């Protein structure tokens, strides 16, 4: 083990319930200096940022949003391990972000945290909303009753952040408290004392306050049948904990109920003392909106309209930006061609590097727009209503409303979405979501759809009032959803039998999204794409350029060069298999390249067609595709072949990153290989059906 180069900074943890505005507070405190690493031993992101408060350097760490500290999985265990400094440095202070409107629930976790003795700052967030409702919260009394620093914040507007920083500075300078916070019923107090003594004797923790908090956590978290996934619990303590639980159960006591109820009694006392409500609470706007948006008929109609508007906007709004980027890239390529001497290096720069960068940047408009819409839905509170409305349907295919968020994230990228399935408690449910999630149409497929629709339909082609491209795009998203749900239903009844986990879904009040927060999040996603995906795309564009350019064919024509290159040979080899789907060997080469990442399909085709078309480097890819023919002169990219290709991309597991992340999350190669197999078979069969049936009926051949 190597010694760290620098002394680690004192840590300040930021925790809070989901929907409390925790991440917004974290971003407001840290600016954009956050960096992402992994917690030791688990594959969960540890987002942290250096901050300077009162001239003191601290490390701010964003904990996953949660309603309590208790845990069944290693991922949920992170919160308590970070808080108690188990295998990690102990924090100097902790910020608990609470939703001012839901103090009666949010204080539960705040008290769990305060009970550890770590100095705490409570950020009473969204305090402007309660003030508007005429609710008064006595912050001084809240501070006195909890022993925490209490600060009023309106994170979306940057309100109270300076005060919060000052409070963090004061808290971080304080020593941990060892005094008990919550009064327990006598029996459970004895149980906790016995466990606390054992923890101190085992020297797992040294502070009495920390040992007491860990004793509480062990009693709440350890599974009676050992079915939890928790680590770092010495066998003697596990045995003692389960003994205590067993004895309590035999005496007719419920330890979980006793512990949680005593916390809530304290919460109720505090809320009673600090919150003053107006005598006549006015009917909240949220109620009126929900009467429409969660209504069976209107709600469904609104959902469909919102989605259609999003996709129409994605398609039409991004087009001018894409055209601008494409012409810009062509201009730079032309400039490089005149400035540099001809040769393999110049070829690499123009067709590998500049083309690769262009292929990355060209997706930014769509990705930015898509995340803007997703952010709007999420921040406004509508996303939770979607889960509420759709849970029954999700359940009928064996998923639950919670799977909806990962599934929806699947629209952007399967990789983070697969990681987001960690919030699903049951392993079976989680695995099921993970296996069907890659069928959701991710943003990397979008460039493929956009390229294909723009190629096979002339601009202005319309079905009724909607552009043909938008209708087709919408149909592909619907196909992906239907395919994912059907796959879930089938897998649940075959390979993954078992009961579903409970649904506990909070419906936050409707809120006007804050543009600053929204744009910051969009930028973070775009940046993540540029860094995470962009570098891979650039590298692969270069690798593929090499595959397509070598071995060199001397002074043969560009077509001959490509045919005898490594990639060309492979494309030719699979052509007999993909011809019934309407794809020739060039599309085959694209599909091979797309396995690295779906969007690479576009850059691969760009190289394939640039080489074939000889000197016309700056000819847009769409024109090249439109002009492409089979050897017998038939058009290659007919509308039917385009639809077949899109269907293939909806269903095929053309993404090694997804396979890698499913391997990591499932802990075995069995599931990702199973996923690859079933998706490939599904994609092949569906495209075959589309092309063959379409051809017989004479559809879309012109």
């Amino acid at each position, binding site marked *: 083990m190597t010694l760290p180069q620098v002394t680690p900074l004192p840590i300040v943890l930021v925790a809070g319930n989901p929907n409390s505005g925790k991440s917004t507070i974290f971003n407001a405190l840290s600016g954009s200096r956050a960096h992402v690493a992994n917690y030791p031993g688990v594959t969960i992101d540890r987002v942290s940022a250096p901050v300077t408060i009162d001239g003191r350097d601290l490390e701010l760490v964003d904990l996953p949003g949660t*309603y*309590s500290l*208790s845990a*069944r999985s290693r991922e949920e265990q992170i919160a308590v391990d970070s808080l108690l400094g188990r295998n990690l440095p102990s924090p100097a202070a902790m910020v608990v972000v609470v*939703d001012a*409107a*839901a*103090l*009666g*629930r949010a204080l*539960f976790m705040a008290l769990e945290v305060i009970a550890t003795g770590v100095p705490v700052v409570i950020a009473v967030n969204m305090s402007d909303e309660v003030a508007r409702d005429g609710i008064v919260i006595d912050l001084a009394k809240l501070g006195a009753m909890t022993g925490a620093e209490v600060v009023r914040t309106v994170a979306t507007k940057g309100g109270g952040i300076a005060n919060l920083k000052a409070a963090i500075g004061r808290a971080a300078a304080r020593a941990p408290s060892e005094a008990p916070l919550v009064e327990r019923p006598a029996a459970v107090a004895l149980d906790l004392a016995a466990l606390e003594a054992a923890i101190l004797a085992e020297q797992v923790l040294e502070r009495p306050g920390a040992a007491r908090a860990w004793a509480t956590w062990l009693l*709440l978290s350890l*599974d*009676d049948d050992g079915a939890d996934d928790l680590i770092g619990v010495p066998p003697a303590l596990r045995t003692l904990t389960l003994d205590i639980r067993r004895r309590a159960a035999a005496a007719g006591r419920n330890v*979980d*109920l006793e512990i*949680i*109820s005593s916390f*809530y009694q304290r919460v109720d006392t505090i809320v009673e003392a600090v919150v003053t409500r107006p005598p006549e609470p006015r009917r909240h706007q*949220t*109620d009126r909106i*929900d009467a429409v948006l*969660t*209504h*069976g*008929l209107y*709600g*469904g109609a609104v959902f469909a309209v919102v989605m259609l508007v999003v996709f129409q906007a994605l398609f039409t709004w991004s087009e001018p930006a894409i055209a601008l980027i494409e012409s810009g890239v062509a201009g730079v390529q032309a400039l490089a061609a005149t400035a540099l001497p001809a040769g393999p290096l110049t070829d690499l720069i123009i067709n590998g590097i500049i083309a690769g960068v262009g292929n990355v940047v060209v997706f930014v408009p769509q990705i930015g727009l898509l995340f803007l819409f997703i952010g709007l839905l999420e921040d406004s509170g509508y996303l939770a209503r979607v*889960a*509420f*409305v759709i*849970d*029954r*349907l999700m*359940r009928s295919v064996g998923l639950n*409303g919670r799977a909806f968020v990962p599934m929806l994230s699947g629209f952007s990228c399967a990789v983070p979405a697969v990681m987001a399935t960690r919030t699903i*408690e049951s392993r079976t449910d989680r695995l099921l979501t993970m296996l069907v999630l890659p069928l959701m149409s991710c943003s990397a497929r979008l460039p493929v759809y956009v390229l294909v629709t723009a190629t096979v339909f002339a601009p202005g082609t319309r079905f009724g009032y909607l552009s043909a491209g938008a209708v087709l795009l919408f149909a592909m998203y619907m196909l992906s959803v239907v395919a994912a749900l059907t796959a879930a239903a089938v897998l649940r009844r075959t390979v993954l039998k078992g009961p579903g986990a*409970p*649904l*506990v*879904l*909070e*419906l*936050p*009040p409707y809120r006007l999204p804050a543009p600053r927060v929204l744009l910051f999040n969009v930028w973070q996603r775009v940046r993540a794409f540029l860094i995470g995906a962009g570098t891979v795309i650039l590298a692969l564009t270069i690798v593929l350029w090499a595959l397509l350019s070598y071995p060199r064919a001397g002074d043969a024509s560009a077509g001959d060069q490509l045919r005898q290159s490594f990639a060309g040979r492979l494309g030719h080899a699979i052509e007999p298999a993909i011809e019934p789907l309407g794809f020739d060997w060039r599309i085959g080469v694209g599909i091979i390249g797309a396995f690295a990442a779906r969007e690479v399909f576009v850059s691969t085709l760009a190289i394939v067609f640039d080489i074939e078309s000889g000197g016309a480097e700056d000819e847009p890819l769409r024109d090249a595709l439109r002009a492409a023919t089979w050897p017998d002169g038939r058009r290659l990219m007919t509308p039917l072949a385009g639809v077949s290709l899109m269907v293939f991309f909806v269903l095929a597991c053309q993404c090694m990153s997804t396979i890698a992340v499913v391997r990591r999350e499932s802990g075995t190669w069995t599931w990702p290989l199973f996923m690859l197999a079933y998706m490939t078979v599904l994609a092949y069969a569906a495209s075959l059906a589309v092309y063959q049936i379409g051809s017989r009926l004479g559809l879309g051949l012109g």
Partner: protein
Amino acid sequence: MTSKPGSLAALPVGGTAIVSRVRGERAVVRRLLEIGLVPGTKVTLRRVAPMGDPIELKVRNFTLSIRRSEALGIDIE
């Protein structure tokens, strides 16, 4: 009707009751308790999802949605 002992699943829309007991699988019960559905808590059934499930509750001044299958395990008085 609203004061009749029974399960939360039997509460009519708009009805209010007090939680008396939460039964079921331990992980589910713990989850419901932690979110604030401890015995003695006032619960109002606000709405039912369009497809009849899940249900929307008002608990401790926030809005929570659970399924009927879980609501069946929550005794009210």
